[in-house]
């Protein structure tokens, strides 16, 4: 059996099945939906950071742009929700294209520029001068398309697509070439890899994923403000979840989301400061003692982790 099929059968299919069944058993649907959203975002970060080494510190920019793409299409063009989600994905890709020049930067410069880009999009969308188009800082309300059940299903579809993309990267020459570029761009290009095209494709795929996730999110919550959908927490959580599990693998980000986001919801402090404190310490401990993620505990012993 080819390993791509194995990964699909034994990792992706069970995960999707579990999340498809859970709403019937477990009452807190919003929590389940958030799990799916973070699974998508963490895998999106995995595509760009795990396979190319670019740290998207402003990843939420695509997510928020997708959410607003969805909102504008529904508000001004009365589009059906499914079409609007697709457009949200395209908005993500368009923003990604606009930001491709950032890929010329390396290391921390890319991360900082990406963070600045996401904040620029936030301030652009939230500008009172654009109230006619985006409703500025006053937020949007999309009661017409409100349908949590369908939106949850759409989120599962997006998750399936994202996982499919990661499985492809993990098992294809393309993914291998990307990892070669990440390790050493010069050697990779000597070996005949088109470095620029590879990076741009990975970047746009991860932008598409985040845009779709943003559209689905807008569909599900239906009332939101710029500060909600552009909240830096989405970027940070997605990055930390992906790193905690271990990037450049299929299981890593999944394990990261389920463990960390699960703990996050289990602890549920009444005072957010204590939570922030514990979270900050956890992040620091992660970087200092387990920089390659949970997966590295297994790979260090020579076990293969997909």
């Amino acid at each position, binding site marked *: 059996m080819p390993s791509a099929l194995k990964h699909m059968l034994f990792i992706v299919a069970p995960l999707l099945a579990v999340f498809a069944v859970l709403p019937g058993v477990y009452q807190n649907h919003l929590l389940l939906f958030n799990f799916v959203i973070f699974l998508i975002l963490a895998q999106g970060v995995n595509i760009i950071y795990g396979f190319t080494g670019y740290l998207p510190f402003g990843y939420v920019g695509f997510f928020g742009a997708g959410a607003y793409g969805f909102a504008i299409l529904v508000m001004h063009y009365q589009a059906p929700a499914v079409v609007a989600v697709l457009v949200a994905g395209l908005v993500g890709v368009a923003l990604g294209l606009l930001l491709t020049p950032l890929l010329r930067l390396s290391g*921390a*410069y890319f991360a*900082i*520029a990406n963070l600045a880009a996401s904040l620029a999009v936030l301030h652009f969308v939230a500008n009172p001068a654009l109230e006619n188009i985006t409703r500025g800082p006053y937020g949007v309300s999309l009661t017409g398309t409100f349908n949590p059940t369908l939106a949850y299903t759409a989120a599962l579809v997006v998750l399936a697509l994202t996982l499919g993309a990661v499985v492809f990267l993990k098992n294809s020459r393309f993914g291998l070439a990307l990892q070669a570029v990440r390790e050493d761009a010069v050697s990779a290009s000597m070996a005949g890899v088109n470095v620029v095209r590879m990076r741009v494709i990975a970047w746009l795929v991860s932008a598409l994923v985040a845009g779709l996730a943003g559209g689905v999110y807008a569909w599900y919550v239906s009332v939101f403000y710029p500060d909600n959908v552009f909240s830096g927490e989405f970027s*940070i959580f997605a990055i930390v979840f992906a790193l905690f599990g271990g990037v450049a693998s299929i299981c890593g980000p999944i394990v990261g989301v389920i463990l960390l986001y699960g703990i996050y919801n289990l602890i549920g402090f009444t005072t957010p*400061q204590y939570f922030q404190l514990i979270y900050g310490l956890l992040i*620091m401990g992660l*970087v*200092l003692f387990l920089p390659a993620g949970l997966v590295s505990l297994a790979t260090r012993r020579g076990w293969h982790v997909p």
Partner: protein
Amino acid sequence: MLIYALVAGVLFGLYFSLVGIGLNLVFGVMRIVNLAHGDFLMLGAFVAFGVVTLAGIDPLFAVPLAFVIFLMVGVLLYWVLVPRLQGSANPEMLSIILFFGLSQVIEAVTTIFFGTSERSIQSRALGTVFSTIKVKLFGGKPDAGGPVQIFGQGFPASWVIAAATSLIAIALVYVYLYRTRLGTLTRAVMSRRDEAFATGIDVDRVSAAAFGIGLGLAAVAGIFAPFMFGSVTPAFGADATVTSFAIVVLGSLGNPLGTALGGVVYGVCYMLVQTYLSSWADLLPYVLLIFILLLRPSGLLGRRVRVA
């Protein structure tokens, strides 16, 4: 109007240079992104609150105090965090996440102890030491401490004092880097870390000193934050970090004069946009940062070192 915007821009710009210079030093020497930079600014502001409310004296006295405290904090933090970080596969990227965690911890601890309310200091408090000296030593009359006149326009005295302190601090950093032995070693580490190591320079000691000085300068800048921005909350750090990055990148890395120029350019742009296009003023730092990174990644005074 234009003159007011320009002069206020220069005053703010000098202050902004002080805000960015610590970050410049840390990134230039260690290639580490101190995402908690803004939080050290915030802590500096809290030192100023402490000095004013506990001792009831001029917050200028907090400047040496904050610098010494955070110099020691920085050296300590360096030894706890950085050597371990440098040993990992991708220290530059991981430092972003590590210091994000640190900034969360600082913000949380400050909130737990001081609450989330906005704090400000009466701007009259700053600079009272000067009028006291004038009265005591030279027998002058105590004046009202009103606005300072520059080119026929009135500016708050606290802005002028902050700008002057920033100038002095930048001059001292310059003296440190170019006129002392440790400073020369610091510049050697900045230009080539591994070669500096190979020539027998104690890279860790030099880096620890730079890290401490960087945090100390951030805290000093923080003392003036309540006067320049009106008030400070524990959550103030994150915005301050991005602004500092814009300034540092605008100038150039490893060059304190570059940061001073970057700060002034930034301050003037900021004031001009705020005067003529106020609803878009929030966008400025981010757009400026992206454009500078793309068009001239080495900054206004830099060499080309940074393109991938």
